[in-house]
Structures are given as structure tokens and as C-alpha cells.
């Protein structure tokens, strides 16, 4: 199970819980339209699979996103966490990881191997989605700014400022998080070392026991 990291997004997500999904939906619609217009290859690569529904559980936000793909078209529906929607596959990851997967700056396999993201359901559909997104050269900020028409320049500058501020905030959160969990981490590391020692000892004893059993009497 993917747990949300201690980050400004988690805190922001808690504060945004009261925002109704109807207010977020237009943003999701706009993004889906931009992706379809600028990156039709995504849906073309997914089309051999037929219609598919992906539930994207952004673990540090109060909403899920249901991506439906059919006949080279896609739409995104914003859902409350407790909404019960059937999907072919569910993908769980923090927002930062999902953004990294969208723009190809993060390796999806590495994220999965290290358990920073998880999924369940139709593996073939998830693999195809990952490959299609990775092959698309998506630049989310440019895509969103582009949709704002004449406000594009201002939106780009604003997003750069916000990203810089977010990076600073994230670093502060990491420092606070470290100071809070360090004592527990040290205890866990000591216990892990002890367990390793005991496992080694156990293995030695098992080996000795097997030898003793197979020795001719």
C-alpha cells in the first residue's frame, strides 16, 4: 500500500477537503482536452486495448481521478475518495510521482520496484498507459499555460514562482519530518540489525542441524 509522504501537498490536500469536486472538474476537463489535442499518440497507443477505465488515487489529495479511454479519446472525472466507481485498474501514488510519470522525469518501473507507487487490476492496461504517457513528451505546465490563451506568459511565470516556492517548502517539510521520525528510525534500524543477526544465527543452526541429521550413525 502506498502511503502519502509528509509534504506540503499532503497538508494542502487536507486543507482542500472542503472544495467540491464540481470546482475541480473543469480543470480536469481542460487538461484532458489539452492532452488529447497536443498528444493524440497517447490514445492511439492505448486504442488496441479497447475501452479501459483507470482509477488514479492521488494519495496526498482528497480526490481520485477516473480516466476513461475509448476509441482514441479520453476523459477525466474527479471523484471523492469514498466514491465507489468500477475501474479496470487502480493506480496509487503521491501527486509528485504522478506528475513525474506524466512528464517522463520519473521512471515508473523504479517507482514501482521501490513501492513509491502501486497498482492493482489490469496490468496490461497499466503498462500500456505508462508506455503511452512516457512516449508523449508531455510538459504539463506548458500544456496548462497554453490553454489560458493570452494569459500564457503570466501563467508560466507564476507557475515557475510557485514551483520554486514549493521546492523550498518541500525541503522544510523534509527537515521537520526527519526530526520527528529520526528517533523511531534509529530504533527500527537497531531492531533490523538485531533481526539480521538472529536470522544469520538461525540459518547457521539449521545448517548444522541438517548436517547432523545426514551424518552416518
Amino acid at each position, binding site marked *: 500500500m502506498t502511503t502519502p509522504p509528509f509534504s506540503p501537498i499532503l497538508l494542502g490536500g487536507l486543507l482542500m477537503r472542503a472544495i467540491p469536486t464540481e470546482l475541480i472538474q473543469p480543470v480536469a476537463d481542460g487538461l484532458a482536452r489539452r492532452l488529447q489535442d497536443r498528444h493524440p499518440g497517447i490514445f492511439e497507443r492505448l486504442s488496441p486495448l479497447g475501452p479501459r477505465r483507470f482509477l488514479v488515487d492521488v494519495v496526498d489529495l482528497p480526490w481520485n481521478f477516473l480516466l476513461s479511454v475509448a476509441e482514441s479519446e479520453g476523459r477525466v472525472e474527479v471523484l471523492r475518495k469514498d466514491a465507489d466507481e468500477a475501474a479496470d485498474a487502480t493506480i496509487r501514488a503521491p501527486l509528485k510521482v504522478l506528475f513525474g510519470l506524466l512528464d517522463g522525469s520519473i521512471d515508473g518501473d523504479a517507482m514501482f520496484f521501490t*513501492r513509491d507507487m502501486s497498482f492493482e487490476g489490469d496490468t496490461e492496461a*497499466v*503498462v*500500456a498507459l505508462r*508506455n503511452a504517457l512516457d512516449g508523449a513528451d508531455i510538459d504539463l505546465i506548458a500544456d496548462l499555460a497554453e490553454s489560458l490563451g493570452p494569459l500564457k506568459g503570466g501563467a508560466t511565470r507564476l507557475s515557475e514562482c510557485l514551483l520554486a516556492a514549493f521546492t523550498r517548502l518541500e525541503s522544510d517539510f523534509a527537515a521537520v519530518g526527519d526530526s520527528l521520525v529520526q528517533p523511531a528510525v534509529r530504533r527500527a534500524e537497531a531492531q533490523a540489525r538485531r533481526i539480521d543477526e538472529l536470522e544469520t544465527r538461525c540459518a547457521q543452526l539449521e545448517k548444522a542441524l541438517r548436517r547432523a541429521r545426514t551424518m552416518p550413525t
Partner: protein
Amino acid sequence: MTRVARDPSRPVSTLELVCPAGTPAALRTAVDAGAHTVYCGFRDDTNARNFPGLNFSREELAEGIAYAHDHAADVLVAINTFPTAGNLDPWHRAIDDAARLGADAVILADIGLIAYARDNHPGLRRHLSVQAAASTPEGVNFYAREFGIARVVLPRVLTLPEIKELNRHTEVETEVFVFGGLCVMAEGRCSLSSYVTGKSPNKTGVCSPASHVEYVEHGSGLDSRLGGFTINRFADGEPAGYPTLCKGRFGANDKTSYLFEEPVSLNLLTMLPEVADAGVTALKIEGRQRGKAYVEKVVKAFRAAVDALDRGETLDAAAIDDLTEGGRETAGAYKRTWL
């Protein structure tokens, strides 16, 4: 057989870095990151990485080749599965199209297809895929003599001394895997995945197809399954892996362990001087199924290492551990310690 795009400024002694591309975006990433050569395949059964959403249409390959050639990089097209009798057309078309689109070489495994390429496209450079499992000078020289093979991709089961010895007895260029997933079976002949899924990696181009893979979360961790069989069980927090049968954890003799191979990745970054000394021509990075972030990071690290080697400098291990399967790496059979 001439190489169209090879960068004339590249020193002859330089090890050629052959990098994976599963999509056009990954091809551009690999070229920008310093790949001398990129290998890729068509979006069908003709190549051994036939994963959903991956690979190239004909148009995409044409654009990719143009991009690579503009940046003095070569493009190799892998047509390295084995056609079934009576259904040769897709494979013949793949070879014809690779030649028509200006690929610098085709990577082939099936002996009939190699003959087809020799007869119909004599000017197209032919590489012998690892799927052909040629591992002796006699085998490699046979392919060179009869089919004009210019390069062989060696199986990942040879030691460096064995590769050096092989190179002493052949004029054929050798290419070895230096990073990525590690196949320890007789490649091109392994039927483990076919046995469990009913789909042959050697004929349809995918080992452990995603359509047969399941990940199931449960209270104490994560199970990975292939064709309905549990292949591995990962505790919470333990690095996970893809469920290929040869890298599963099985119970035997009252013990649960990796019977064939652990889910580790090959990494020869710090062994490149020894690889060069073995007479190898090209270094292959595995991972057409991996994303751009992987391609960029690994290609940059290896290109820096190859350049450092050219300058006679000591190689530093780059931080690419996080891209390895299971978070662990090995020198594999190249530095065999178990015999």
C-alpha cells in the same frame, strides 16, 4: 556495408554505446544523452519487447532515424523473434521496411530471416541477436561465413575471459550487455514463460506478458503472479520486481529462495576497462520497456564512463542504483564467482 551516421569525430578505440528506445521520445532522449547507437523495434510480434503501448510505427521509425542521423547516431532495428511456418510476411515486411527507412542495421535471430536479409538487402548490415544464442567462435564464424553477420550480441552467460578468448578467434564485432535486466537462460530457447502463459517470448516477442501478470496487495505485503501462479511475495517495504518465472521465489528443501536467479540488474559500469580489454566493440544497455528517465540516466552515466575510459581516467560508479530491478545489481556471469 557502410554505416550511414557514424560520427566521424569519434575515436576508433571508443566503445560503442548501444542504447534502448521503446518509443520515439525515448529514442530522442537516448540520442540527446549521448548514445552512439539506438536500437528499437516495430509495434508487432517481430521484436522481442512486444509490450503494450510500446515500439514504433513505420512513420515513427522514419522520424527517429532522421533524428538520430542528424545527431550522428545510428539506429538498429531488432527483428529478433522467430516466425512461425506459413506466416513469414510480417517478418519479411519488417526487414524490407527497416532497409527502406534507412536503418543502419537489423538485429536478427532466425537463420531463415538472416538469409532473407542477405539475399534481398545485401547492403543492409546484419547483427546476430542474443536470441540466436551464439556463444562459440565456431558458431559466430559460421554465421559470418554463410550469412555475412557483421556483429554478434553475446549471451549473458559468458565470463570476460571467455569473451576475450572468443574475440581472439573471430573477426566479427562483439556486443555485450552492460546494464539492465539479466536473462540467465539460453536466450531464444527458453520456454518457461510459454509454459505458464501459453504465449511464447520467442514467437510473439514478450517474456511474462503483462496480460498475464497480476500484483495483489494483502495484509502483509504484495504478491506478484504470472498466469495465475504466485511467483513472488514481497514484505511491506521490500523492493518488488516483475514476475518472470526465472526470478521467482520458490520453496524447495524446506527453504524458500530464488532458485534460478535473484531479481537483480546487471551493472558493469566500473568494469568497462576489463570489457574493453576483452576486445568487445559495443556495449548494450537493456531496457526498451523502461521509460525516458531510465534511458537518460543510464545512457548519461555510461557515456561519461566511455569518455572517461578514452581519456584514460578512472571510472567512478554513478548513482544509478535506484534504477535497478529489486534495487540490487550484479556483474552476472562476466565475473563468475560460483564456479
